[in-house]
């Protein structure tokens, strides 16, 4: 067990280091002058030289890399060019939005996917199964941003129940919640399509096993069998997909924030690209990659909690 934990943790840290090298390399080594990218073609030579000095571009590449990593470890991502404030400040102002969206999206995804998947499995081969699986097949093909637009058309433009986008700020909690409903639903519906299918097939697998038959024979109710016996035993494949989906969900927030004009990290990335604010883009890409890698690491650890048998094999 200890050996497993240590090995996974070392692998996790090694991946993070490798990710930081890739991000730094793509943003800094690829042909092109960051100062020129930021200032544009008609910048004067003096301005370019000053900015290169500012960005530390005159230092050797390795020194810049270690400087960046050391700064990042202490929460210092340098200065944003377009906003003229530390990048860390920009991030901390917007982190709450992205995390709320991702967490709410994940919870709603789990709620929808587990219910629909278990329901479909319990109606295996019948109309209910067929209909839910047809809808989920369709759901996999629907882009989240198009679903968002359709939701806005229905609930904001036609029915006028919810705002079409924008965010009033956390100081108005009710209005803030209302403006997060459509984004969360759009995020969750698309994600739950995949997860519902995995839940269904995994649950069907478990329902074929002897202990399910025994539970049924001993007179337990169908509901109790499904939620207490089938679901826990069907969790390993589900958790694998959930880990992958959390990564997809976090990058999904980048898209959704741009659809609904929400002031989160995803919107910040696009503002920074438009402003040619390379230090901010670099920090944000790294942050999102860290979240993806961490999600996969947590899934690896969860396996052991869910299925102690894996301990021996790990």
């Amino acid at each position, binding site marked *: 067990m200890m050996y497993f934990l240590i090995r996974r943790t070392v692998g996790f840290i090694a991946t993070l280091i490798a990710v930081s090298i890739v991000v730094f390399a793509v943003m800094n080594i690829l042909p092109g002058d960051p100062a020129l990218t930021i200032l544009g073609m008609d910048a004067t030579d003096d301005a370019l030289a000053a900015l290169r000095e500012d960005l530390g571009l005159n230092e050797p590449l390795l020194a810049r890399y270690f400087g960046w990593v050391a700064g990042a470890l202490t929460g210092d991502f340098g200065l944003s060019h377009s906003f003229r404030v530390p990048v860390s400040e920009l991030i901390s102002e917007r982190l709450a939005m992205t995390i709320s969206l991702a967490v709410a999206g994940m919870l709603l995804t789990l709620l929808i996917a587990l219910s629909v998947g278990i329901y479909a499995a319990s109606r295996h081969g019948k109309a209910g199964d067929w209909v839910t699986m047809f809808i989920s097949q*369709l759901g996999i093909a629907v882009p989240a941003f*198009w679903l968002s637009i359709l939701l806005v058309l229905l609930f904001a433009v036609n029915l006028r129940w919810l705002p079409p986008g924008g965010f009033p700020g956390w100081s108005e909690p009710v209005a803030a919640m209302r403006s997060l409903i459509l984004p969360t639903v759009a995020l969750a519906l698309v994600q739950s399509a995949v997860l519902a299918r995995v839940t269904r097939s995994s649950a069907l697998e478990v329902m074929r096993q002897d202990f399910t038959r025994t539970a049924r024979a001993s007179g337990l109710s169908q509901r109790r069998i499904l939620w207490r016996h089938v679901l826990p035993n069907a969790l390993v494949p589900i958790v694998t997909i959930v880990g992958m989906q959390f990564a997809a969900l976090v990058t999904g927030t*980048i898209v959704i924030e741009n659809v609904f004009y929400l002031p989160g990290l995803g919107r910040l990335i696009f503002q920074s690209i438009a402003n040619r604010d390379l230090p901010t883009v670099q920090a944000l890409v790294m942050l999102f990659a860290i979240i993806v890698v961490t999600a996969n690491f947590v899934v690896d650890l969860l396996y052991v909690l869910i299925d102690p048998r894996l301990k021996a094999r790990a």
Partner: protein
Amino acid sequence: MKSLPANFVIGAVLVALVVGVAGLSLIWTPHDPTALNIRGKFGDPSAVNWLGTDQLGRDIVSQLMAAARNSMTVALVAVLLGGSIGVALGLLASAIGGWIEDGVMRLADLGFAFPALLFAIMLAAVFGPSLTNAVLAIAFINIPIFARVARASANQIWTREYVLAARAAGMNKFTITRDHILPNIAAAVIVQATIEFAVAILAEAALSYLGLGAQPPASSWGRMLSEAQTLMYLAPELAFYPGFCIVIAVLGFGLLGDGLRDITDPRLARAR
């Protein structure tokens, strides 16, 4: 003859439809998809403009057709590029084994830390947004996927008797890979490619929607949607057609891939 699975048949029909329309747009569209006609803007569907015109008076049907062609081209180039690099790496890893195999697979793991969107964002920040960067980003995320599939399938083939016999007869690993391994993993690779084609279509649409893919005046379903979004109160119908096309294309390739998998490897189909 055993009847073909339903997902294969439906998928094949949808794919034929989308690819057919994309091919047709090479030689014919009802109008020039980029021709402006400000006086005829927001035109209703008519005998001339079957689905009407957009905010600049461009013909919707022609734009959708040109966008289908662009979408197919992006997906084809990205999957071919990423797929061939990935398969080559996977075959290399499987043939040589040892630390090279470990190294390639760790690199593949690393690739999974970068969703296409993040990679496209980095490229756009450094080089500016373009369709080429979108293609490269989508190709990049395909490399680790195909490397894993190729290695896993190839490792199985390397243990077969006829491969052992070939090795005993003194064939070198390159020849064995070319003559025995590659033909035997082709089915698995083609199935994966079909599924990744669907993923690539979705990715291109999302990147173009966000402004990181097709640039004006090139037609793209994703870009049409981002333009339509600003006109939701004026012309909500503009937001329907491109999304509908994306769903048809993605659904088609997804079902076709599932169907091919069911046909080529029934065991795998059950396991999923």
